[in-house]
């Protein structure tokens, strides 16, 4: 699927439009690239609906950056004024309530769509050769997005913001040796305060735009090998592909409107699904809330953190549960890509999704009572899936492939 140099030459030399655009195109082949990488880009015709999530993510990211920029114009990153500036945005800045609910809904749905995208990658084996680098860049994006989302949640400086930063600081402090130093660097002092807000505001902003850059890289690498397929087999020839435009423009467009409808439903009618009321209490260092919990999308990792009965162990398991995803291309070496053709792996994927949901539920219940065991069992399976099931299934499939003629 790689583009031969000769194609490139043809595209750039034949298709120059006339006029000023042609003048630019001979010097910077924007028109040629647009036609080659978008209009005529060959897409496997068998792609299912899960392959439209990428477009949703791109649009949601753009919305996050634009609404975030507008919010930043009115936000004050200081412990004394942050909460009041959010109140000002919600109550008196014209359209401020709309901007903020867009940004809050966007954060939840963006990470939600990201989980769907990640699931699709794992289920259909999108991480396998020749797409290992695409997977690594995608996982880097995932980690960056989680950090950005956490930093953003601290900025309103409500009770959950403050105590979330406090818990994160204590988790960092569990690193042996340098932990306390790292905690001080993260908090900018002994406890969350002005220093923390300044840091996290800059981090939130910087990472958000870095994410945009890495998304560009992600798409560029995608265009080298092209998208995978639900069957896992690359399209046999041009008869099994369709040009991106108009076929996938129309399909992605329809999917985007469906996504926008879900977005509007949550943002306008069901905001209680994503809004944490406790964060409308201003940060109070003297009063620990009874339930400190992060946003729903961080709950599974919070569940892992709490399920391990040691501070350092919990931190390692929690960070490890993200890092192990990076290693997927090297843990699963089977030539069979799609879970559709791998019954054992497919059952394993179902169990992985269930454990991930259970971890989130255990995280929300502070792994109390029976949830401690649920959390521990789910954590165990999560790692078994990647570290044992993936290599074992691969081993068996490779052996079977060798036996077959």
């Amino acid at each position, binding site marked *: 699927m790689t583009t031969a140099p000769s194609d490139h030459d043809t595209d750039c030399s034949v298709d120059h439009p006339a006029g000023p655009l042609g003048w630019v195109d001979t010097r910077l082949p924007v028109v040629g690239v647009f036609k080659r990488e978008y209009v005529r880009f060959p897409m496997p*015709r068998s792609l299912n609906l899960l392959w439209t999530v990428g477009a949703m993510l791109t649009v949601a990211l753009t919305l996050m950056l634009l609404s975030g920029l507008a919010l930043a114009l009115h936000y004050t990153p200081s412990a004394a004024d942050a909460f*009041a500036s959010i*109140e*000002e945005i*919600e*109550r*008196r800045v014209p359209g401020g*309530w*709309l901007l903020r*609910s867009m940004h809050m809904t966007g954060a939840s749905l963006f990470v939600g769509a990201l989980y769907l995208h990640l699931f699709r990658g794992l289920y259909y084996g999108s991480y396998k050769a020749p797409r290992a680098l695409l997977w690594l860049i995608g996982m880097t994006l995932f980690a960056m997005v989680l950090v950005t989302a956490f930093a953003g949640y601290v900025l309103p400086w409500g009770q959950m913001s403050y105590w979330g930063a406090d818990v994160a600081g204590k988790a960092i402090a569990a690193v042996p040796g340098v932990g306390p130093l790292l905690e001080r660097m993260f908090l900018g002092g002994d406890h969350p305060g002005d220093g923390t807000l300044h840091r996290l505001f800059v981090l939130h902003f910087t990472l958000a735009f870095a994410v945009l850059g890495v998304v560009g890289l992600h798409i560029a690498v995608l265009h080298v090998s092209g998208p995978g397929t639900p069957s896992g087999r690359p399209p046999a020839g041009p008869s099994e592909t*369709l040009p991106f435009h*108009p*076929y996938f423009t*129309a*399909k992605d*467009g*329809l999917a985007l*409107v*469906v996504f*926008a*409808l879900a977005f*509007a*439903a949550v*943002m*306008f*009618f*069901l*905001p209680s699904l994503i809004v944490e*009321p*406790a964060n*409308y*209490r201003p940060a109070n260092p003297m009063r620990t809330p009874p339930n400190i919990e992060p946003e729903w999308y961080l709950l599974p990792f919070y569940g892992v953190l709490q399920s391990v009965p040691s501070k350092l162990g919990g931190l390692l398991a929690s960070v490890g549960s993200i890092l192990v995803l990076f290693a997927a291309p090297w843990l699963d070496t089977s030539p069979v890509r799609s879970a*559709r053709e791998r*019954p054992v792996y*497919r059952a394993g*994927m*179902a169990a992985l*999704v*269930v454990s991930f*949901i*259970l971890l989130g*539920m255990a995280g929300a*219940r502070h792994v*109390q*009572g*029976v*949830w401690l065991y*649920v959390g521990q069992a789910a954590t165990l399976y999560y790692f078994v899936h990647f570290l044992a099931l993936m290599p074992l299934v691969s081993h068996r499939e490779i052996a079977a492939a060798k036996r077959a003629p």
Partner: protein
Amino acid sequence: MNRPSFLRGVASAAIVAALLSPASSFAAKGDHDPAPKRAWSFDGPLGHFDLASVQRGYAVYAQVCSNCHGMEHVYFGDLRGMGLNDHQAEAVAESHTVPDGVEGKTRPATLDDAFPTPPVARGLTPGAVIPPDQSRLAVVYPGGPDRIYALLTGYGPPPAGVTEAKDTFYNRFALGRTIAMPPPLHDGSVVYADGTQATLDQEAQDVTTFLAWVAQPHLDERRRVGVRVTLYLLFLGCLLFILKRRVWSNVH
């Protein structure tokens, strides 16, 4: 292939997990009576505030609640959102005084001034419990408007065998069934400008509606915009559905 069975497996496991979950959120159930559910004008995804009730509720707030509670994030100009015009809001503002400069001078408030916070809410009364700020009370108070209403109307003599400590009052909806706030509302606590009979129930109903409005002043507008956006998107979705079908009609 077997995808439906896969999805079914995930869904049933999630349902089993939900059924197994202990009701941990009800752990504190014994600490107060559950507030009965009430019908509010702003309930549900398409509800909207009864602005007459919001305005009457402001009267209750201004004459009773604001003696002790602050509402530091709300400005007099924000009152225009409950249906007052500029002159009416200015008249309300001018009836309050706010500090002017550092020498203890005061001046009449303007639309750009926040509601003044009474001394007790600023912690300036030694030994007094600090009353919570009411800017977002209806959102952050566990139980929401239902429980605020229940609390305001839930004072009564303690059951036999229970004696209240000094300066606290028995209220079966308060945390621990005891509260430092004296019963704030009685029949005729306020006089309504629109002639509505100021019974305890009416006052509690109105002030709760006002607190709910002030906690989410743009709720009505949010829902109005939402209906328009949803209709637009549904129309656009139909067009794109037809477009997609036509574009893909020659693919088999």
